[in-house]
């Protein structure tokens, strides 16, 4: 009997992770909005920038799902930047959160995405 090897599903798995990441940023953006109403006027710019980042990440997720090479490249660049930023914050003595959730979201998730988006095998060849 000939067994057909199933697709790896790497782009689909990357889509799910990018979708979750965009939702985390969406929540972060929305949660800062009340501080704008409280008088922190500069926070308004951060809210808009974060919501745009969430939207952009969601679009990248769709691009990755459609096997767009540009989306894949941009997603890798985004995750490398996230990892780099997290590494700096972990090294600085500023009390950056080192709990399991923080490590999952800020370290494990970008690493998993970079692994899923690598260019070998059938997924992104």
């Amino acid at each position, binding site marked *: 009997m000939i*067994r*057909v*090897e*199933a*697709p*790896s*599903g*790497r*782009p*689909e*798995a990357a*889509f*799910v*992770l990018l*979708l*979750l990441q965009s*939702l*985390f*940023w*969406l*929540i*972060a*953006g929305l*949660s*800062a909005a009340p*501080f704008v109403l*409280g*008088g*922190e*006027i*500069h*926070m308004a*710019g*951060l*809210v808009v*920038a*974060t919501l745009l*980042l969430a939207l952009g990440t969601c679009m990248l997720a769709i691009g990755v799902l459609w096997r767009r090479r540009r989306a894949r490249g941009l997603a890798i660049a985004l995750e490398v930047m996230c990892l780099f930023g997290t590494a700096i*914050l972990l090294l600085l*003595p*500023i*009390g*950056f*959160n080192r*709990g*399991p*959730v*923080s490590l*999952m*979201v*800020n370290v494990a998730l970008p690493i998993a995405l970079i692994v899923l988006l690598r260019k070998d095998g059938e997924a992104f060849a």
Partner: protein
Amino acid sequence: MFDIAPDHAIGLYVGLLALPLALIAIQLRRPRDVSGTVLGASVLMAISGGIHLGLVLTHRNETITAALFVMNGVAYLALSQLYSWPWWRPASAALITMTLFGYLGYIVLGFDTPDQVALATKLLELTALGLVLVPVAGERPWRRRRWGTLAVAVPLLTVVTISVAWIDALARPDTQHVHVGAVLQQTNEVATPEQEAAAKQLYDQTVVAIAPYGDWHKAWDAGFRPGGSQSLPSTHWMNQRNVDAAYVMDPKHPQGLVYANSKHGPVLLGAMFQMKNIGNFGPDPGGPLTAWHQHENICFTPIGFEFSLMTPTATCPLGAIDITASPMLHVWIVDNPGGPFAVDIDEKVVKRIDQS
């Protein structure tokens, strides 16, 4: 919310133990006709099952909770290995959804409070749900229905789960987290007469020492500078020299002053002592009356020196970073309903001064 509850830590260890076992199980079976997303969901469900079973050990006295943990853990472990079963996807999606709603019900009813183990488990389950539902290229069965379910369920459950956990943590803080983002120094519960006298002495000395700074020009000359927007009701003015010198609760050298931003200029509200290092609470002469507090998991942006709160998923807005401010103690020289050493000053008091 950002701590690991002592009775939940065991769940984390068992969950981590389940990870290599789940990977070994996949290696042994070598399922070539199963997509990577399904195997990923299988591993995540095995970890989640391990966490739930681990929690049984510390919840043996709570019969119903322990029974639910056993049923949940066994169901997760079983489904993590049954991925060739035709009804695996609906069964897994239903189990994950029920578990998420069950947990939310538990915290809304006050049976549990969200902590790092619970939140990490929920993130694993949400990821597993996405992997269970997402159709890979070439998969035909229920393709459109699965996309539809994924597009609605994952965003909705993610937002609802995080929001409910966050609202619960803010609305029902424990005794150490009485103020948003602030962790209180642990002290005895009721102040002794000696502690009351020591607190009064500290208050009196501070009132006298900072009296000249009622004129903000003198504070400026002494090196105090506004540490944030002056469009807010009040602003902390920090003295970098006093911060660097690391004076410890010295009324003559407070690290900061707090001013209300009134129509007629800054009005002195009080002083702030601050320790140099994170986690190093200062001397506490007044016991519970003069407990220090440390602001943890706040998102700070250098753009305008503004703050917001880190989300339960440890995310800050773009341009802000998660920081912890070293322990501080305020001494309010205006009548503050929370007391002269309260973590924060009453908003109504500041508003009244601002509008005076």
